[in-house]
């Protein structure tokens, strides 16, 4: 049985963060996503990161960065209020403003490139046919593409593309014809079978799946029971969704041979290890970075430290040692 270590004090955390990263002796945190090797398995969740965070934290210590979703044509996003916080977690309805592929290439991509880690460009569409043209429009920019199929499908009355295995297959097939770069399919929470969706992605040529996204939710004001968000509906995220996503990651990782990237309420290395122990190969951190901008870097360093502490060569060995 494992006993979680006591939480360090704020001062201890600060000292830890300021210290130079421990020299990696034999620990190998690297992870392969198709042809791409990441130095470690920690990256931001799309939409919860921007190059401006590089002004606060050493982004070069992350395994990769993931961009905000790029759509084919510019879109302004949803009306205010775009986010709120409930006891259940954060709910956002930002609506993914995008300057389109050309706008991304001109104004954003150079800033991402300067960060010095692999750039995974998130790509979106409202119809299964809209993804490939965006990837074409990106003209090879980016080290991998994450297909955000958690958008309402306008071909099918607004159901998520990612909840429909056939639509997932179509998207991945079409994008595969445009690029040899690794493709990650970011699946939504609300699916009838996460295994079917992950297998559809794998069969169509995806190199990894990311499980999952925020959970559709409707926050109301306490006083008048009217919608808080301008868009009425938003996506719930934060630590409370972790058990829900853990189940999905467990199911998905048993269904496919390609890596599963976990995304859902990860705040600490322990949370990440929960996901690794049910089959995840990498993790994305979203909501936690808002309150603690250094959360991702802390997780990378803590994973390294945990492995070193028990002389585990990698995370798989670390988990095996726990189970032994």
């Amino acid at each position: 049985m494992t006993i979680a270590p006591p939480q360090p004090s704020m001062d201890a955390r600060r000292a830890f963060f300021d210290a130079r990263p421990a020299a990696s002796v034999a620990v190998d945190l690297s992870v392969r996503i198709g042809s791409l090797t990441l130095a470690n398995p920690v990256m931001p969740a799309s939409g919860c990161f921007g190059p401006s965070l590089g002004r606060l934290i050493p982004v070069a210590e992350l395994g990769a960065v993931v961009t905000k979703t790029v759509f084919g044509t510019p879109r302004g996003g949803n009306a205010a209020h775009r986010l709120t916080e409930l006891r259940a977690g954060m709910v956002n309805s930002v609506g993914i403003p995008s300057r389109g592929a050309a706008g991304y290439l001109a104004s954003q991509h150079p800033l991402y490139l300067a960060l010095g880690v692999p750039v995974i460009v998130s790509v979106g569409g409202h119809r299964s046919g809209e993804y490939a043209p965006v990837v074409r429009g990106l003209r090879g920019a980016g080290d991998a593409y994450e297909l955000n199929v958690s958008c309402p499908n306008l071909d099918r009355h607004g159901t998520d593309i990612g909840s429909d295995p056939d639509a997932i297959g179509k998207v991945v097939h079409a994008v595969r014809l445009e690029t040899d770069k690794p493709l990650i399919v970011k699946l939504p929470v609300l699916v009838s079978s996460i295994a079917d969706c992950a297998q559809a992605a794998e069969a169509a040529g995806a190199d990894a799946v990311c499980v999952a996204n925020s959970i559709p939710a409707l926050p109301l004001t306490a006083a008048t029971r009217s919608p808080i968000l301008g868009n009425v509906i938003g996506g719930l995220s934060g630590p409370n969704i972790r058990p829900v996503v853990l189940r999905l990651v467990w199911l998905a990782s048993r269904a496919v041979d390609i890596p599963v990237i976990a995304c859902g309420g990860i705040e600490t290395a322990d949370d990440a290890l929960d996901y690794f122990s049910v089959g995840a190969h990498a993790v994305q951190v979203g909501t936690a970075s808002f309150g603690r901008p250094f959360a991702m870097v802390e997780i990378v360093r803590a994973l390294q430290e945990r492995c070193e502490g028990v002389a585990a060569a990698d995370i798989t060995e670390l988990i095996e040692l726990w189970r032994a």
Partner: protein
Amino acid sequence: MTVTTALGDLAALRRQQAFAAADEAALDGLIAVRPPERVPRPDPVWDDARVLVHEVVGERYRRLVLATDTIATTALAGQFLMITVPPTGGERILLPRPMAIHRRHPDQGTVEVIYGSAGRGTTALTDVLVGESLLVTGPLGRGFEFPDAALPTETGPEAPRTALMIGRGVGVCAIMGSVEDAARLGIAATVVLSGRSPANLIGLADCAELGATVIPVTDDDGSSALPALGERLRGLFAWAPPDVILACGAGVLARLAADLGAEWGAPVQVSLEAHMACGLGYCHGCAAPVATDPAVEGPLVCVDGPVFDAVLPDRAAAGREKPAG
């Protein structure tokens, strides 16, 4: 008793909703992103800031004095902090709360913040004790900046340069940095401090310390009502309009400032509030309310603001129609 309270709550709620609707209407088409600043923005840092003072101010507010050397030294007037609320009493607050820097004391390495406990986040913040630390990120955003016309020249103008500042509630905090700057630059500052009641006026002592002229106005005696306040300011500045107007705390006050600025030919800058998660421009939670084409996102309050130019919509349109050059 319960019924009376419930009715009282409902009345307060309706009043709040009416204020919110009026603010939204007042801001419609009013704001524009300011031209690039002359002084580059300082790099933000995150800091475990020790709480040196945490005390009640008036009936509704609390004041925090935070030890944070870098931010105290670098923050520009009108910039803000993101304050992460630590877990207390079983309450977990996920998102940091944006708060204006009320005072900068670079010699002491401290900044002051004043907040009202309204929602879950700010209520949990009231539990933080002196001696504990708060995780703060800052300084953030585009602050207030005196335009050239409001700056004293080398040779010295005939009459002192003047600035009119208008703040309401905790909105006073956003403008207090400019009152500090005015004192340093030798600009004569007149500061309207607006609040519900005399006990809820923020900034009286600060203005006294900084040598600013204060016009206190309250809802209690009706002096904060827009027509009354507008007439009073028109009378006061009839012969010598201010060189710049800065405002924060309500959309309707921003609109009044823009009206006065148009009459007097004075530039107007207003600071806006918005719900935000990152404070750095990447979450896009705080796009400002501007009438735009649905394909174009409004400016972000956290990086394009919080301080914007305020120009009456018809004047902004007239300005755009002018031939270039």
